[in-house]
């Protein structure tokens, strides 16, 4: 049976010194035995420094011993050296293997639960999942996403649908809230009434009888289109009123702003405390006996401590409070801008066709700015019986 050919890998190299007479014969002998050398360098007249593949080293040593050459200073290089280094430290490969095994085992469990798009249900769904056992630490293959979706759909009827799936070590639950059904026109006789007050700009009646005309001032709840129609023989028929009633509407927002401001000024008196603080505990300090004070804090980590301990230097400086009157024009401008901003927020989505601001002084202490906006909208809504 032929011996197996050694596998020579270029990464696994050994360096050795060979000493003796006629070293060229030694090299030729290796060549005859089909043992390649990676490098040969003459060190002195009787020594060669050679590099060989690690798998050939035992054969080289045997040949050298048989023929009378001495092999010494055998040193592993490249990956052979690393392999030797690792053999001397068995804890490292064992740790790597253990880590890999741990990662493999732990990746079989769910470690996070993420809920997307739940809005106000977020906390409730999270608590429900926790109660039902869908929490961190549960095995991935024990999670039946379809059953979970059914469970959630059954519990939350107002949610349109749930999509549960496991991504990596995260249980993802996508929530799509339901949209309430719009009121559809029905054949039940009804009126159209004003959703808010305003001045009618135009009216288009598709069914029923108009109860107002352009230019009329209407109040909230007033009937705009009656659900009655007169037939050709003079009799009245009840119908579901339908139409568009465009009206100019107004909305006001008021902002009140004081004409004075409180200014604090440090008096020069101060108290300094020093205390130790950790994320869990803080050394209590007694506050300074001032009516009002500013607090300044300097933090310094305690050197040499592995635990996060911080030395805090707290300075409390006494301040005196003074009332200072503000310029009327500045207050007026700020109040007007604030009122307009609030109005725009309230009328978000509507096209404002006109707006203005009124000011009034309140007991000489504050200024009230009222911003009024005018816009056009369909104010008719179906009055359900």
């Amino acid at each position: 049976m032929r011996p197996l050919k050694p596998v020579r890998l270029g990464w696994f190299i050994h360096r050795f010194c060979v000493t003796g007479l006629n070293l060229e014969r030694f090299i030729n002998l290796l060549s005859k035995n089909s043992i390649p050398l990676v490098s040969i360098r003459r060190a002195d007249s009787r020594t060669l420094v050679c590099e060989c593949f690690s798998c050939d080293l035992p054969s080289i040593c045997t040949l050298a011993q048989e023929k009378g050459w001495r092999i010494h200073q055998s040193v592993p290089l490249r990956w052979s050296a690393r392999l030797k280094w690792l053999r001397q430290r068995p804890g490292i490969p064992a740790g790597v293997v253990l880590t890999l095994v741990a990662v493999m085992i732990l990746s079989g469990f769910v470690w996070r639960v993420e809920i997307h798009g739940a809005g106000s249900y977020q906390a409730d769904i999270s608590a429900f999942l926790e109660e039902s056992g869908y929490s961190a630490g549960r095995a991935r293959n024990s999670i039946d996403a379809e059953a979970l979706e059914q469970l959630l759909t059954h519990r939350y009827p107002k949610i349109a649908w749930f999509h549960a799936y496991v991504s990596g070590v995260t249980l993802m639950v996508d929530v799509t809230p339901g949209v309430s059904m719009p009121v559809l026109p029905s054949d039940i006789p009804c009126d159209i009434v004003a959703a808010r007050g305003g001045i009618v700009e135009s009216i288009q009646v598709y069914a029923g009888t108009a109860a107002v005309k352009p230019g009329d001032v209407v109040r909230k709840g007033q009937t705009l289109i009656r659900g009655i129609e007169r037939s050709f023989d003079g009799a009245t028929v009840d119908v579901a009123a339908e139409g568009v009633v465009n009206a100019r509407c107004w909305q006001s927002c008021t902002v009140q702003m004081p004409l004075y401001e409180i200014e604090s000024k440090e008096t020069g008196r101060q108290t300094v405390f020093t205390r130790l603080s950790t994320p869990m505990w803080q050394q209590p300090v007694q506050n300074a006996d001032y009516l009002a004070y500013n607090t300044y804090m300097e933090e310094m980590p305690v050197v040499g401590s592995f635990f996060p301990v911080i030395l805090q230097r707290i300075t409390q400086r006494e301040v005196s409070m003074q009332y200072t009157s503000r310029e009327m024009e500045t207050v007026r401008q700020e109040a007007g801008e604030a009122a307009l901003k609030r109005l725009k927020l309230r009328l978000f989505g509507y096209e404002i066709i006109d707006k203005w601001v009124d000011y009034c002084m309140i007991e000489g202490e504050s200024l009230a700015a009222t911003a009024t906006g005018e816009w056009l909208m369909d104010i008719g809504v179906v009055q359900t019986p």
Partner: protein
Amino acid sequence: MLDRLRQADIPQELVFGWPRSVLLGDEKLIVEQHQGIYACTEQEIILKTLCGHLVITGEKLSLSRYDRDGLVVFGRIEKLSYRPKG
């Protein structure tokens, strides 16, 4: 015989076992079809070949990738010459 080989376009060194040397600059010499090492020092490497001894002279010479088929000489190569056998 030689004429026939030339006509057939067959490399002569393959048929006769002549050494084939490729010198790259003055730093690297690749030798194929050698018959072993005769001498090896940092200043001189002598290889046995079918054409006689191939003498490589230079400074800081070292052998690399040595096996039965070929070898590579690294170092500062100054001279290549043949010395008759015997």
